[in-house]
């Protein structure tokens, strides 16, 4: 099977859907001429000249206008430059996009997609390194997808562009260049279906995004020590595949949740809480979460490494849980 990058897979998904559906258009900062700061739109350059354009740095209007455009029957894809900047226009998302349909008693279909990069990179520091997906799980009204591989991003984004509900897609900036197998034939990935990236019998690790790869690395090492790790990539946070996680915990009796975002009150706490509530009698040890340390992201790379979780933390957590 051919291998393409995460960014290329994303581009393909958007391209294919734009070809099919004339109501799709996309805009954001630095997308049209540059093809996106991480090259996500490179393949779209020049293809749909009227349907891709650059915007001023006006986040409230970028996100809010996506809502307005959806209400008049279009299907916009609004890019956020960095997930951190969702906050500069946050009212449009949390107070408008997430509320309108409910507040109006179900009038209107808000088919829109907000997408952009999140997570750490090379010392991008505190305002350009955040992972804030937890907030959009907490505040009801938008679906959250977080792909970790080229295969996943293509399938998920295509589904998002056929959804009638608002979707936000977080793409870890360090994954754009990673390659993976992607079939030529069209496929969709439904929301709320996790992917067991590796099977194992001793401990379940629930994770997403960059941490999926860290978990697989940890799993490989632990395999040599005779510990079987089951790595579950949730792929979507809202909705999330509770069934698969609980089935796995029933099998392994041990759970670790790993995410890059801050450990305290991160979405890992929600998963852990639900599992202990619904699979209490299957747990042979407490559930342990792996997450970032509770400080803003420091600039110095040594410091950044220290506060950011990686495969070693997952190994430690797995061992602790299996002690």
């Amino acid at each position, binding site marked *: 099977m051919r291998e393409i990058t995460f960014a290329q897979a994303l581009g393909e998904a958007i391209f294919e859907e734009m070809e099919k559906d004339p109501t799709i258009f996309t805009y954001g900062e630095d997308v049209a001429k540059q093809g996106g700061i991480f090259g996500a739109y490179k393949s779209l350059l020049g293809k749909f000249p009227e349907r891709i354009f650059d915007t001023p740095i006006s986040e409230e209007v970028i996100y809010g206008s996506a809502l307005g455009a959806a209400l008049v029957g279009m299907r916009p894809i609004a890019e956020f430059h960095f997930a951190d900047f969702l906050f500069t226009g946050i009212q449009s998302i949390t107070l408008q996009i997430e509320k309108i349909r409910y507040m109006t008693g179900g009038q209107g279909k808000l088919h829109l997609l907000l997408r952009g990069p999140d997570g750490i990179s090379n010392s991008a520091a505190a305002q350009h390194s955040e992972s804030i997906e937890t907030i959009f799980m907490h505040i009801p009204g938008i679906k959250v997808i977080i792909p970790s591989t080229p295969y996943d991003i293509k399938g998920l984004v295509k589904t998002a562009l056929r959804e009638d509900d608002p979707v936000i897609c977080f793409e870890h900036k360090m994954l754009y260049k990673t390659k993976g197998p992607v079939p030529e034939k069209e496929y969709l990935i439904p929301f709320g279906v996790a992917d067991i990236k590796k099977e194992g019998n001793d401990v379940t690790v629930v994770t997403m995004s960059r941490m999926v790869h860290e978990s697989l690395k940890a799993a490989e090492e632990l395999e040599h020590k005779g510990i079987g790790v089951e790595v579950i990539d949730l792929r979507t946070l809202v909705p999330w595949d509770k069934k698969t996680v609980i089935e796995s915990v029933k099998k392994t*009796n041990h759970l670790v949740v790993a995410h890059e975002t801050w450990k305290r009150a991160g979405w890992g706490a929600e998963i852990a809480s639900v599992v202990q509530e619904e699979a209490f*009698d299957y*747990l042979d040890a407490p559930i342990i979460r792996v997450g970032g340390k509770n400080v803003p992201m420091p600039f110095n790379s040594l410091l950044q490494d220290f506060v950011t979780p990686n495969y070693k933390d997952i190994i430690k957590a797995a061992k602790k849980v299996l002690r």
Partner: protein
Amino acid sequence: MYEIKMPRFGLTMESGFIEKWFKEEGEEVKEGEPLLEVSSEKITNEVASPASGTLLKIMGKEKEEIKVGTVIAIIGKEGEKIEKIKEKVEPEKIVETIERGEIPPAKVALPERDGRIKASPLAKNIAREKNLDLSQIKGTGPDGRIEKKDVLVYLSSVSGKKVEFKIEKLSGLRRTIAERLSKSFHTAVTLTNTTEVDFTEFKKLMKENNVSITSGLVFVLSRVLKELNKFNAHFDSDKEELRIFNDINIGIAVDTEKGLMVPVIKDVDKLNLKTINEQIKKLAGEARNGIISEDDIKGSTFTLTNLGMMRTEIFTPVINPPEVAILGIGRIIKKPVIIDENKISIRELAYLSLSYDHRIIDGADAAKFLEKLAQLIENPGPK
């Protein structure tokens, strides 16, 4: 009113077991109708009702050892009141087995471990399912927490007591067999010698005479026992006395539904082949049908056991105490044999396995026994 008492079969029976009641309390019974099944050490028999009427009360419980003469049931007129029976039936507990469901539910927190037993939810779940007492389980997790593996370790260590099983109370017969064999195994010094014997001519001869191999063996055995009479003896290890008998009574191990029985052919040396054959047939049949009399299953001075009908060639039969030896014969198989120094012929061979008590009999004796026996088998003269 009629009191039914525990019957005595044979002279030596002191107690027996009620295997099965054929009627329930309140049912009508007729005189002569089979009422219950009773077993002793040696045999099991149906007991017919001595009277007609209503089975008012059953006091004797199934599978419990009851002394001979104890009242086990009352037959009377329907509605009749039963007076207090003087002799209470007190069955002896034979096997103390705990039935499932009688185990008290697992306790979770006991005062011993500073007020709180730490156990993972999974461990508690398993303990609850298997009705285990958590306070008995040692925890090896952090802070002494009991984890699944600790519960499993505990389970395997007490598997004898708490593992699921089906309860089958030993019948009287089985119990006896168990007892005696155990006794033999632990007191006698049992060794087994074997030799392969050519049964070709022997087999032919038995066929001609229309008698079984077993019968032939019994006949031949009696000759050898007469000569090497040390084998025709009982050993009393307490008194350290060897009793060598004049009479040769050969017991033949018979496999029945109820277990192993050993009917005895008495005075074999005085019988001819045909008679032996008939006797064996008769007694074996009676044994299998459960109607053999006590007298016919005791008094053996030597025992023969034939596993030849099944796939066994060599085996180590256990001596029937207080006898001093036992002969086993295995399957007869066609094999190529060298005769006349360099010719190959197809012959029918079987192994004789002679187990003997080395306290009394030496290896050389045993070898001699087998030698003589083999000779008679391989060179059957006119019988």
